């Protein structure tokens, strides 16, 4: 059974969805494969159910590829129940989508959310009258205070068990559909299986924006023919559809909703400061500065604890097991790999904390308003800033988030440059290299010098993203119409539980998806580092490497050494760079494996690296020039195969993914070379 949660943006739908699914059900979550819709699976009295959270939209007519997900879902599937979440404070606007869904002929449950605010504002909503007019069951809740949530869940569960049916008999499209009679007749001939008039019209209007599984290429050709022979204009149809529905909705709203007074809201008063051309920008910049300071300093405490925990665990396991290949595998391969994933969780969690709070509070929309003008100079739009900011957590969700950008040119540029933003996978590498490069000192008595360098790496990432975008603006052709036009939602105190769930989901996605790759690669690397090609004369293919100098990895590093020598790296760093392609932070694990295997130095990785000497030149391996060059390389290079895979998925083109790799890595190589030459 499928239960789909639908509603306008900012209706509190996702908050409600999270509260219902997380609070009670022991759910198996399948995160990450898509951001388009969140799916939870659970059994209720032996009936297997899927709970689906669709992106918020005002209408079934899509304006962006994210909204196309909603339409595609309803063209492809008929859920057993739609839970329609609406915000009674903006009642009129919430009813458009409801009438559209009702015309698709599905059971619908209407949820009046935010009832606490309705009471607070002393508005009056007649839910019973609403239920009577729409012929649909309705319930009032407050996702924030939790009022009515249990009743809602009970009613949904009751519906599932009883296989209930709540269909609205009214067909809203009847008010205007006469105008499209000829189109409808053609449509019936071409798609006889489509028995729903409204769904047929939606498919005809938007068949070029969606790809339902069952729609064959020959069907598309036929649909195009209908559009042409009838001079059918999808935009006109959408306008007719929308205005006709609103015509009826306006009357209904007057019967069920009473509002007292229309004064300036708190939101508008707050916006006088936060969207002020001067103060608004200043507040944003200061806030970002504090966020980065916080991510840097707060996360270090749990990160140290995780590191020490793993050191302890490795020692325990190491001493409990007899010396064997299995012990080496568990301690140096598996545990080291898991550590590489876990150490990273505090920073991802903190970064998402800030992004989710900004989004949930409504502030993110103001940021878009403030910076759209600036972003457009570089071929992007205000929404791109959200993707770029998310890119500081992880490029993968950030590239997915470019779907909210309607203009295809802006979207392409944004997703191309987003990986240049310093993602959290770079953080451990930055920290390690900065600690080697920069003394732990205070500047002017209060500014942490390492923190300052850390911030400047972020600025370098941002600057190069903007620079590349600026160049691309000149080369990418514009297609379609770009529009901004978005709602500035009411400011809300975020629901902290939901913020927690969202962070948990994102961290989980990282641990499960990226983590698998990281652990896998670190095991492969452990193998490459500990084993060597055998001697065919003795009949062995693989033997345990006597030292790292003879291992498989060493051969690989040595092969690439001529390429990386000019920017100051030896073959060991080369191994690190190979491994970093799995995920950048693996670099640390590799370096510790390389140096741990070679010379188990108890003082920790930093001390080991600081004292490492290149036997050929007699110079320190991690001298100033090499370390700085490496830092710059990590800022700019495309070293993440998951990102390339996601670029390919989102653009449908390997060419763009490859170009992204070439541009970033080329840029990185040149910049690292300049830094190396300049400093040595």
């Amino acid at each position, binding site marked *: 059974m499928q239960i789909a949660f639908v509603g306008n943006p900012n209706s509190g739908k996702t908050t409600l969805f999270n509260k219902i699914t997380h609070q009670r059900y022991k759910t198996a979550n399948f995160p990450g494969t898509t951001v388009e819709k969140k799916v939870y699976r659970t059994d209720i009295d032996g009936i297997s159910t899927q709970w689906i959270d669709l992106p918020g939209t005002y209408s079934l007519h899509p304006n962006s590829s994210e909204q196309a997900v909603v339409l595609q879902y309803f063209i492809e599937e008929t859920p057993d129940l739609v839970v329609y979440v609406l915000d009674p404070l903006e009642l009129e606007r919430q009813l458009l989508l409801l009438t559209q869904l009702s015309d698709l002929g599905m059971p619908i449950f209407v949820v009046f959310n935010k009832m606490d605010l309705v009471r607070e504002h002393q508005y009056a909503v007649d839910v019973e009258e609403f239920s009577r007019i729409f012929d649909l069951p309705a319930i009032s809740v407050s996702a924030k205070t939790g009022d009515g949530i249990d009743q809602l869940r009970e009613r949904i569960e009751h519906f599932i068990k009883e296989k209930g049916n709540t269909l609205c008999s009214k067909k809203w499209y009847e008010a205007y559909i006469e105008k499209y009679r000829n189109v409808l007749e053609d449509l019936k001939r071409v798609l006889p299986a489509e028995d729903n008039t409204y769904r047929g019209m939606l498919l005809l209007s938007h068949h070029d924006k969606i790809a339902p599984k069952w729609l064959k290429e020959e069907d598309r050709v036929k649909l195009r023919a209908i559009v042409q022979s009838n001079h059918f204009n999808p*935009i006109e149809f959408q306008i007719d559809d929308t205005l006709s529905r609103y015509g009826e909705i306006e009357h209904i709203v007057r019967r069920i909703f009473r509002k007292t007074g229309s004064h300036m809201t708190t939101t508008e008063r707050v916006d006088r400061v936060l*969207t002020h*051309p001067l103060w608004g920008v200043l507040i944003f910049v200061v806030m970002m500065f504090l966020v980065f300071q916080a991510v840097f300093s707060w996360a270090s405490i749990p990160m140290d604890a995780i590191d020490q925990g793993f050191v302890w665990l490795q020692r325990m396991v190491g001493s409990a097991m007899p010396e064997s290949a299995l012990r080496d595998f568990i301690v140096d391969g598996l545990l080291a790999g898991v550590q590489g994933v876990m150490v990273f969780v505090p920073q991802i969690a903190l970064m998402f904390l800030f992004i989710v709070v900004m989004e949930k509070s409504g502030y993110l929309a103001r940021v878009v308003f403030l910076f*759209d003008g*600036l972003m457009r100079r570089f071929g992007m739009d205000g929404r791109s800033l959200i993707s770029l900011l998310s890119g500081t957590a992880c490029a993968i969700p950030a590239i997915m988030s470019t779907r909210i950008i309607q203009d295809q040119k802006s979207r392409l540029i944004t997703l191309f440059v987003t990986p240049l933003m310093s993602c959290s996978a770079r953080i451990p590498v930055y920290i390690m290299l900065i600690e080697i490069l920069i003394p732990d000192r205070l500047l002017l008595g209060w500014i942490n010098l390492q923190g300052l360098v850390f911030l400047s790496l972020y600025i370098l990432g941002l600057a190069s993203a903007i620079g590349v975008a600026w160049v691309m603006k000149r080369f990418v052709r514009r297609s379609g119409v770009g529009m901004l036009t978005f709602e500035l939602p009411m400011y809300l105190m975020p629901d902290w539980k939901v913020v927690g769930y969202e962070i948990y989901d994102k961290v989980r996605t990282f641990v499960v998806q990226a983590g698998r790759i990281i652990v896998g690669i670190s095991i492969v690397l452990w193998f490459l580092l500990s084993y060597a090609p055998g001697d065919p004369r003795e009949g062995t293919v693989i033997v345990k490497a006597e030292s790292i100098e003879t291992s498989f990895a060493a051969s690989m590093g040595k092969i690439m050494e001529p390429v990386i020598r000019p920017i100051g790296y030896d073959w060991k760093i080369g191994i690190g760079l190979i491994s970093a392609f799995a995920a950048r932070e693996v670099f640390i694990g590799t370096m510790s494996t390389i140096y741990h295997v070679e010379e188990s130095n108890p003082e920790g990785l930093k001390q080991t690296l600081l004292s490492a000497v290149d036997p050929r030149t007699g110079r320190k391996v991690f001298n100033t020039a090499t370390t700085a060059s490496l830092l710059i390389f990590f800022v700019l290079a495309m070293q993440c195969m998951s990102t390339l895979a996601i670029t390919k998925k989102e653009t449908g083109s390997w060419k763009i993914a490859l170009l992204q790799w070439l541009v970033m890595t080329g840029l990185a190589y040149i910049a690292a070379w300049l830094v190396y030459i300049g400093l040595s």
Partner: protein
Amino acid sequence: MAEAVAKVRGKIRSIRDKYLARRLYEMGVLPGKNIQLVRQSPMGRCVYVKSGTTLMALRKEEWEQIEIIPA
């Protein structure tokens, strides 16, 4: 600075651009509704607009597509 921007308010007569019209209509910003320009963005390329209880951000050129009967 923001307060110095000439305030425009009135009723929506029509929206010239059809792409913009369908977007605004679906948000419930319809002909006959009140609309008011509240302020401009830092580089003056976006406007902060209020219609009914809805607060929105629009680009300057989008705003210019809205025909307004001044109040």
